[in-house]
Protein backbone atom coordinates (compact mmCIF):
# COMPACT_ATOMS: atom_id res chain seq x y z
CA UNK A 1 0.00 0.00 0.00
CA UNK A 2 1.68 3.23 -1.05
CA UNK A 3 1.60 6.46 0.86
CA UNK A 4 -1.05 8.17 -1.26
CA UNK A 5 -3.49 5.30 -0.80
CA UNK A 6 -2.97 5.37 2.96
CA UNK A 7 -3.66 9.09 3.09
CA UNK A 8 -6.79 8.73 0.93
CA UNK A 9 -8.08 5.83 3.02
CA UNK A 10 -7.57 7.62 6.30
CA UNK A 11 -9.11 10.84 4.98
CA UNK A 12 -12.18 8.86 3.92
CA UNK A 13 -12.40 7.15 7.30
CA UNK A 14 -11.93 10.35 9.31
CA UNK A 15 -14.23 12.68 7.40
CA UNK A 16 -16.30 11.24 4.59
CA UNK A 17 -17.32 7.98 6.20
CA UNK A 18 -17.10 9.38 9.70
CA UNK A 19 -18.12 6.70 12.17
CA UNK A 20 -20.71 8.82 13.93
CA UNK A 21 -21.93 11.16 11.22
CA UNK A 22 -22.08 8.81 8.26
CA UNK A 23 -22.32 5.32 9.70
CA UNK A 24 -24.34 6.02 12.85
CA UNK A 25 -21.94 4.01 15.00
CA UNK A 26 -21.10 5.12 18.52
CA UNK A 27 -24.16 7.34 18.90
CA UNK A 28 -24.53 6.71 22.64
CA UNK A 29 -21.31 8.39 23.76
CA UNK A 30 -21.78 11.03 21.04
CA UNK A 31 -25.11 12.26 22.33
CA UNK A 32 -24.41 11.85 26.03
CA UNK A 33 -20.97 13.53 25.93
CA UNK A 34 -20.38 16.20 28.54
CA UNK A 35 -19.74 19.85 27.81
CA UNK A 36 -16.04 19.43 28.60
CA UNK A 37 -14.00 18.90 25.41
CA UNK A 38 -11.24 17.32 27.49
CA UNK A 39 -13.42 14.43 28.60
CA UNK A 40 -14.75 14.06 25.07
CA UNK A 41 -11.14 13.66 23.97
CA UNK A 42 -10.46 11.02 26.63
CA UNK A 43 -13.48 8.94 25.58
CA UNK A 44 -12.34 9.31 21.98
CA UNK A 45 -8.88 8.00 22.87
CA UNK A 46 -10.34 5.05 24.79
CA UNK A 47 -12.58 4.13 21.84
CA UNK A 48 -9.71 4.47 19.37
CA UNK A 49 -7.45 2.21 21.45
CA UNK A 50 -10.19 -0.40 21.68
CA UNK A 51 -11.00 -0.18 17.98
CA UNK A 52 -7.39 -0.81 16.99
CA UNK A 53 -7.00 -3.62 19.54
CA UNK A 54 -10.22 -5.34 18.51
CA UNK A 55 -9.50 -5.06 14.79
CA UNK A 56 -6.00 -6.40 15.28
CA UNK A 57 -7.28 -9.34 17.31
CA UNK A 58 -10.53 -10.18 15.54
CA UNK A 59 -9.16 -9.92 12.00
CA UNK A 60 -6.78 -12.91 12.31
CA UNK A 61 -9.33 -14.79 14.41
CA UNK A 62 -11.87 -14.48 11.61
CA UNK A 63 -9.45 -15.22 8.81
CA UNK A 64 -7.51 -18.12 10.23
CA UNK A 65 -10.14 -19.78 12.40
CA UNK A 66 -13.67 -18.92 11.32
CA UNK A 67 -13.18 -18.76 7.55
CA UNK A 68 -10.74 -21.68 7.58
CA UNK A 69 -13.37 -23.99 9.08
CA UNK A 70 -16.38 -22.44 7.28
CA UNK A 71 -17.87 -21.14 10.48
CA UNK A 72 -17.98 -17.46 9.58
CA UNK A 73 -21.58 -17.31 8.42
CA UNK A 74 -23.05 -18.73 11.58
CA UNK A 75 -20.65 -18.02 14.37
CA UNK A 76 -19.13 -14.66 13.37
CA UNK A 77 -21.61 -12.58 15.34
CA UNK A 78 -21.46 -14.66 18.49
CA UNK A 79 -17.67 -15.01 18.43
CA UNK A 80 -17.12 -11.30 17.72
CA UNK A 81 -19.52 -10.06 20.37
CA UNK A 82 -18.11 -12.32 23.06
CA UNK A 83 -14.47 -11.72 22.13
CA UNK A 84 -14.99 -7.94 22.00
CA UNK A 85 -16.44 -8.14 25.50
CA UNK A 86 -13.44 -10.13 26.74
CA UNK A 87 -10.97 -7.85 24.90
CA UNK A 88 -12.45 -4.74 26.49
CA UNK A 89 -12.25 -6.27 29.96
CA UNK A 90 -8.72 -7.55 29.31
CA UNK A 91 -7.36 -4.31 27.83
CA UNK A 92 -8.88 -2.30 30.65
CA UNK A 93 -7.22 -4.57 33.20
CA UNK A 94 -3.84 -4.52 31.43
CA UNK A 95 -3.80 -0.74 31.09
CA UNK A 96 -4.64 -0.36 34.73
CA UNK A 97 -1.73 -2.61 35.70
CA UNK A 98 0.81 -1.18 33.25
CA UNK A 99 -0.03 2.52 33.54
CA UNK A 100 -1.48 3.01 36.99
CA UNK A 101 -0.67 6.72 37.04
CA UNK A 102 -2.54 7.55 33.87
CA UNK A 103 -5.68 9.50 34.47
CA UNK A 104 -8.38 7.63 36.37
CA UNK A 105 -11.02 9.08 34.04
CA UNK A 106 -9.83 6.99 31.10
CA UNK A 107 -10.35 3.77 33.01
CA UNK A 108 -13.79 4.67 34.21
CA UNK A 109 -15.03 4.58 30.60
CA UNK A 110 -13.59 1.18 29.77
CA UNK A 111 -16.44 -1.02 31.00
CA UNK A 112 -18.85 1.00 28.86
CA UNK A 113 -16.88 0.19 25.72
CA UNK A 114 -18.09 -3.41 25.84
CA UNK A 115 -21.42 -2.09 24.63
CA UNK A 116 -20.02 0.30 22.05
CA UNK A 117 -21.19 -0.08 18.47
CA UNK A 118 -18.01 1.65 17.35
CA UNK A 119 -15.65 -1.06 18.61
CA UNK A 120 -17.58 -3.98 17.12
CA UNK A 121 -18.67 -2.03 14.06
CA UNK A 122 -15.05 -1.42 13.08
CA UNK A 123 -14.32 -5.14 13.28
CA UNK A 124 -17.34 -6.05 11.15
CA UNK A 125 -16.55 -3.43 8.50
CA UNK A 126 -12.95 -4.61 8.24
CA UNK A 127 -13.91 -8.26 7.94
CA UNK A 128 -16.76 -7.79 5.47
CA UNK A 129 -14.88 -5.31 3.31
CA UNK A 130 -12.06 -7.84 2.62
CA UNK A 131 -9.39 -5.48 3.92
CA UNK A 132 -5.84 -6.71 4.41
CA UNK A 133 -4.27 -6.39 7.85
CA UNK A 134 -2.45 -3.10 7.14
CA UNK A 135 -5.61 -1.54 5.74
CA UNK A 136 -7.51 -2.82 8.75
CA UNK A 137 -5.17 -1.11 11.20
CA UNK A 138 -5.12 2.17 9.22
CA UNK A 139 -8.90 2.06 8.93
CA UNK A 140 -9.54 1.41 12.61
CA UNK A 141 -7.08 4.04 13.76
CA UNK A 142 -8.39 6.77 11.46
CA UNK A 143 -12.00 5.88 12.19
CA UNK A 144 -11.18 6.29 15.85
CA UNK A 145 -9.63 9.68 15.08
CA UNK A 146 -12.80 10.65 13.19
CA UNK A 147 -14.89 9.55 16.14
CA UNK A 148 -12.74 11.65 18.50
CA UNK A 149 -13.12 14.71 16.27
CA UNK A 150 -16.89 14.28 16.16
CA UNK A 151 -16.99 13.92 19.95
CA UNK A 152 -15.00 17.11 20.49
CA UNK A 153 -17.18 19.02 18.02
CA UNK A 154 -20.33 17.78 19.75
CA UNK A 155 -19.12 18.73 23.21
CA UNK A 156 -18.26 22.24 22.02
CA UNK A 157 -21.63 22.59 20.31
CA UNK A 158 -23.32 21.53 23.54
CA UNK A 159 -21.51 24.25 25.44
CA UNK A 160 -22.96 26.82 23.02
CA UNK A 161 -26.50 25.47 22.79
CA UNK A 162 -26.83 25.18 26.58
CA UNK A 163 -25.79 28.76 27.28
CA UNK A 164 -27.68 31.90 26.35
CA UNK A 165 -26.33 33.68 23.28
CA UNK A 166 -24.80 37.17 23.30
CA UNK A 167 -28.15 38.82 22.49
CA UNK A 168 -30.04 36.70 25.00
CA UNK A 169 -31.10 34.15 22.39
CA UNK A 170 -31.79 30.71 23.87
CA UNK A 171 -32.53 27.27 22.56
CA UNK A 172 -36.35 26.91 22.48
CA UNK A 173 -37.70 24.71 25.28
CA UNK A 174 -38.91 21.99 22.94
CA UNK A 175 -35.44 21.63 21.44
CA UNK A 176 -33.40 21.72 24.67
CA UNK A 177 -31.11 18.76 25.28
CA UNK A 178 -31.24 15.84 22.85
CA UNK A 179 -33.32 17.38 20.00
CA UNK A 180 -30.92 20.25 19.40
CA UNK A 181 -28.00 17.81 19.56
CA UNK A 182 -29.61 15.74 16.82
CA UNK A 183 -30.19 18.82 14.66
CA UNK A 184 -26.56 19.89 15.14
CA UNK A 185 -25.47 16.38 14.23
CA UNK A 186 -27.56 16.64 11.05
CA UNK A 187 -25.73 19.85 10.10
CA UNK A 188 -22.33 18.26 10.84
CA UNK A 189 -23.29 15.22 8.75
CA UNK A 190 -24.33 17.48 5.91
CA UNK A 191 -21.00 19.28 5.94
CA UNK A 192 -19.11 15.97 5.94
CA UNK A 193 -21.25 14.85 3.00
CA UNK A 194 -20.03 17.88 1.11
CA UNK A 195 -16.47 16.49 1.21
CA UNK A 196 -17.46 13.44 -0.85
CA UNK A 197 -16.31 15.05 -4.10
CA UNK A 198 -12.68 15.21 -2.99
CA UNK A 199 -11.88 11.53 -3.42
CA UNK A 200 -13.12 10.99 -6.93
Amino acid at each position, binding site marked *: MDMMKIIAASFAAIFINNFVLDR*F*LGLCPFFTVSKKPSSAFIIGVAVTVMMVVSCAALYPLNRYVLVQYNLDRYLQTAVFVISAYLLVQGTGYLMKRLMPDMSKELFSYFPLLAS*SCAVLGAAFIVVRGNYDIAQAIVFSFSSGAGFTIAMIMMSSVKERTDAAGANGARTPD*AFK*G*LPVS*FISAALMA*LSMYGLRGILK
Partner: protein
Amino acid sequence: MKRFILGLAPVLAVSAVAVTGLGMGIVLAFSLIISAGLVSLARKHLPEIMRGAVSVIIIAGVVTLVQAALFYLLPDMSSSFGIYLPLIAVNCYIYYTALIYGEGEAQGSPESSRTVLMAGLFIFLASIFAGLVREIAGRGAITLTLPAGGAGTLDLMKLLPPGVSISPAAVFIMPAGGFLVAGLALAFFQHIYKKRA
Protein backbone atom coordinates in the same frame (compact mmCIF):
# COMPACT_ATOMS: atom_id res chain seq x y z
CA MET B 1 -37.76 8.69 26.22
CA LYS B 2 -34.16 9.75 26.36
CA ARG B 3 -32.85 6.29 27.10
CA PHE B 4 -34.93 4.78 24.29
CA ILE B 5 -33.41 6.91 21.58
CA LEU B 6 -29.86 5.79 22.30
CA GLY B 7 -30.02 2.34 20.81
CA LEU B 8 -31.55 3.53 17.58
CA ALA B 9 -28.36 3.52 15.50
CA PRO B 10 -29.35 0.59 13.25
CA VAL B 11 -32.80 2.08 12.66
CA LEU B 12 -31.34 5.43 11.59
CA ALA B 13 -28.82 3.68 9.39
CA VAL B 14 -31.26 1.60 7.34
CA SER B 15 -34.38 3.77 7.42
CA ALA B 16 -33.64 5.66 4.19
CA VAL B 17 -35.88 3.02 2.62
CA ALA B 18 -39.19 2.52 4.43
CA VAL B 19 -39.41 -1.25 4.09
CA THR B 20 -35.91 -1.92 5.46
CA GLY B 21 -36.64 0.51 8.30
CA LEU B 22 -39.76 -1.49 9.12
CA GLY B 23 -37.84 -4.76 8.88
CA MET B 24 -35.12 -3.47 11.18
CA GLY B 25 -37.76 -2.30 13.65
CA ILE B 26 -39.32 -5.76 13.80
CA VAL B 27 -35.98 -7.57 14.06
CA LEU B 28 -34.65 -5.21 16.73
CA ALA B 29 -37.82 -5.28 18.85
CA PHE B 30 -38.07 -9.07 18.57
CA SER B 31 -34.43 -9.67 19.54
CA LEU B 32 -34.66 -7.21 22.42
CA ILE B 33 -37.78 -8.78 23.91
CA ILE B 34 -36.57 -12.38 23.54
CA SER B 35 -33.05 -11.72 24.81
CA ALA B 36 -34.25 -9.59 27.73
CA GLY B 37 -36.68 -12.34 28.70
CA LEU B 38 -34.02 -15.04 28.61
CA VAL B 39 -31.48 -12.91 30.45
CA SER B 40 -33.95 -12.10 33.22
CA LEU B 41 -34.75 -15.79 33.63
CA ALA B 42 -31.09 -16.81 33.76
CA ARG B 43 -29.85 -14.00 35.97
CA LYS B 44 -31.66 -15.09 39.10
CA HIS B 45 -29.72 -18.32 39.23
CA LEU B 46 -26.28 -16.81 38.69
CA PRO B 47 -23.72 -15.31 41.05
CA GLU B 48 -23.20 -11.56 40.69
CA ILE B 49 -19.78 -11.79 39.01
CA MET B 50 -20.96 -13.95 36.10
CA ARG B 51 -24.05 -11.95 35.18
CA GLY B 52 -22.47 -9.52 32.71
CA ALA B 53 -20.66 -12.24 30.78
CA VAL B 54 -23.66 -14.58 30.69
CA SER B 55 -25.99 -11.88 29.44
CA VAL B 56 -23.55 -11.08 26.63
CA ILE B 57 -23.44 -14.75 25.65
CA ILE B 58 -27.23 -15.08 25.67
CA ILE B 59 -27.73 -11.93 23.61
CA ALA B 60 -25.08 -12.98 21.09
CA GLY B 61 -26.81 -16.36 20.74
CA VAL B 62 -30.26 -14.86 20.18
CA VAL B 63 -28.93 -12.44 17.56
CA THR B 64 -27.09 -15.25 15.77
CA LEU B 65 -30.33 -17.24 15.51
CA VAL B 66 -32.26 -14.20 14.29
CA GLN B 67 -29.56 -13.52 11.72
CA ALA B 68 -29.60 -17.08 10.39
CA ALA B 69 -33.41 -17.08 10.19
CA LEU B 70 -33.45 -13.78 8.30
CA PHE B 71 -30.75 -15.00 5.93
CA TYR B 72 -32.94 -17.89 4.83
CA LEU B 73 -36.35 -16.22 4.93
CA LEU B 74 -35.55 -12.76 3.51
CA PRO B 75 -32.07 -12.77 1.93
CA ASP B 76 -32.58 -9.35 0.27
CA MET B 77 -33.53 -7.75 3.57
CA SER B 78 -30.66 -9.45 5.32
CA SER B 79 -28.07 -8.15 2.83
CA SER B 80 -29.46 -4.61 2.89
CA PHE B 81 -28.92 -4.52 6.66
CA GLY B 82 -25.18 -5.11 6.20
CA ILE B 83 -23.14 -4.75 9.36
CA TYR B 84 -26.09 -3.35 11.29
CA LEU B 85 -27.64 -6.79 11.63
CA PRO B 86 -24.92 -8.25 13.88
CA LEU B 87 -24.72 -4.92 15.70
CA ILE B 88 -28.25 -5.52 17.00
CA ALA B 89 -26.49 -7.56 19.67
CA VAL B 90 -24.78 -4.44 20.96
CA ASN B 91 -28.06 -2.58 20.93
CA CYS B 92 -29.83 -5.26 22.91
CA TYR B 93 -27.04 -5.09 25.46
CA ILE B 94 -27.33 -1.29 25.67
CA TYR B 95 -31.09 -1.45 26.14
CA TYR B 96 -30.74 -4.25 28.59
CA THR B 97 -28.27 -2.40 30.81
CA ALA B 98 -30.08 0.94 30.47
CA LEU B 99 -33.51 -0.46 31.21
CA ILE B 100 -32.79 -3.01 33.86
CA TYR B 101 -29.53 -2.29 35.65
CA GLY B 102 -30.14 1.44 35.41
CA GLU B 103 -33.27 1.34 37.47
CA GLY B 104 -32.17 -1.14 40.09
CA GLU B 105 -35.47 -2.98 39.94
CA ALA B 106 -36.07 -6.54 41.01
CA GLN B 107 -35.41 -8.90 38.14
CA GLY B 108 -38.40 -10.40 36.39
CA SER B 109 -40.79 -8.01 38.09
CA PRO B 110 -43.86 -6.94 36.09
CA GLU B 111 -42.41 -3.43 36.07
CA SER B 112 -39.21 -4.37 34.21
CA SER B 113 -40.98 -6.63 31.70
CA ARG B 114 -43.39 -3.81 30.97
CA THR B 115 -40.47 -1.45 30.36
CA VAL B 116 -38.89 -3.91 27.93
CA LEU B 117 -42.16 -4.40 26.04
CA MET B 118 -42.64 -0.63 25.87
CA ALA B 119 -39.14 -0.23 24.49
CA GLY B 120 -39.86 -2.86 21.85
CA LEU B 121 -43.07 -1.12 20.80
CA PHE B 122 -41.31 2.22 20.72
CA ILE B 123 -38.53 0.91 18.45
CA PHE B 124 -41.11 -0.60 16.13
CA LEU B 125 -43.16 2.61 15.79
CA ALA B 126 -40.09 4.83 15.51
CA SER B 127 -38.67 2.77 12.67
CA ILE B 128 -41.93 2.80 10.68
CA PHE B 129 -42.18 6.56 11.18
CA ALA B 130 -38.55 7.29 10.26
CA GLY B 131 -38.66 5.06 7.21
CA LEU B 132 -41.87 6.53 5.80
CA VAL B 133 -40.90 10.15 6.40
CA ARG B 134 -37.42 9.73 4.98
CA GLU B 135 -38.37 7.83 1.87
CA ILE B 136 -41.41 9.94 0.97
CA ALA B 137 -39.62 13.24 1.55
CA GLY B 138 -36.29 12.14 0.13
CA ARG B 139 -37.25 10.05 -2.86
CA GLY B 140 -40.93 10.81 -3.47
CA ALA B 141 -41.66 7.10 -3.58
CA ILE B 142 -42.33 4.12 -1.36
CA THR B 143 -40.47 0.90 -1.99
CA LEU B 144 -42.78 -2.08 -1.58
CA THR B 145 -40.42 -4.89 -2.55
CA LEU B 146 -36.65 -5.06 -2.34
CA PRO B 147 -34.23 -4.18 -3.91
CA ALA B 148 -34.97 -0.48 -3.56
CA GLY B 149 -35.81 1.43 -6.70
CA GLY B 150 -36.88 -1.74 -8.57
CA ALA B 151 -40.22 -2.69 -10.07
CA GLY B 152 -42.10 -2.79 -6.78
CA THR B 153 -41.86 0.93 -6.10
CA LEU B 154 -44.89 3.15 -5.61
CA ASP B 155 -43.96 6.44 -7.24
CA LEU B 156 -45.86 9.17 -5.43
CA MET B 157 -44.78 11.78 -7.96
CA LYS B 158 -47.17 10.20 -10.48
CA LEU B 159 -50.09 10.78 -8.14
CA LEU B 160 -49.73 14.56 -8.25
CA PRO B 161 -52.29 16.43 -10.36
CA PRO B 162 -50.96 17.28 -13.83
CA GLY B 163 -49.00 20.50 -14.03
CA VAL B 164 -47.85 20.28 -10.40
CA SER B 165 -44.30 19.14 -9.85
CA ILE B 166 -42.38 18.79 -6.60
CA SER B 167 -38.82 17.58 -6.48
CA PRO B 168 -37.99 15.44 -3.45
CA ALA B 169 -35.49 16.74 -0.86
CA ALA B 170 -32.60 14.32 -1.23
CA VAL B 171 -31.18 15.37 2.13
CA PHE B 172 -33.67 13.04 3.82
CA ILE B 173 -32.13 9.91 2.37
CA MET B 174 -28.62 11.04 3.29
CA PRO B 175 -27.30 10.27 6.78
CA ALA B 176 -28.03 13.89 7.74
CA GLY B 177 -31.73 13.25 7.09
CA GLY B 178 -31.75 10.51 9.70
CA PHE B 179 -30.45 12.87 12.36
CA LEU B 180 -32.82 15.61 11.21
CA VAL B 181 -35.98 13.46 11.34
CA ALA B 182 -35.00 12.04 14.73
CA GLY B 183 -34.26 15.53 16.11
CA LEU B 184 -37.55 16.99 14.92
CA ALA B 185 -39.53 14.03 16.24
CA LEU B 186 -37.80 14.32 19.62
CA ALA B 187 -38.54 18.05 19.76
CA PHE B 188 -42.20 17.32 19.04
CA PHE B 189 -42.41 14.80 21.87
CA GLN B 190 -40.56 17.10 24.24
CA HIS B 191 -42.98 19.90 23.43
CA ILE B 192 -46.01 17.75 24.21
CA TYR B 193 -44.41 16.35 27.33
CA LYS B 194 -43.55 19.80 28.68
CA LYS B 195 -47.04 21.09 27.98
CA ARG B 196 -48.60 18.26 29.91
CA ALA B 197 -46.23 18.54 32.86
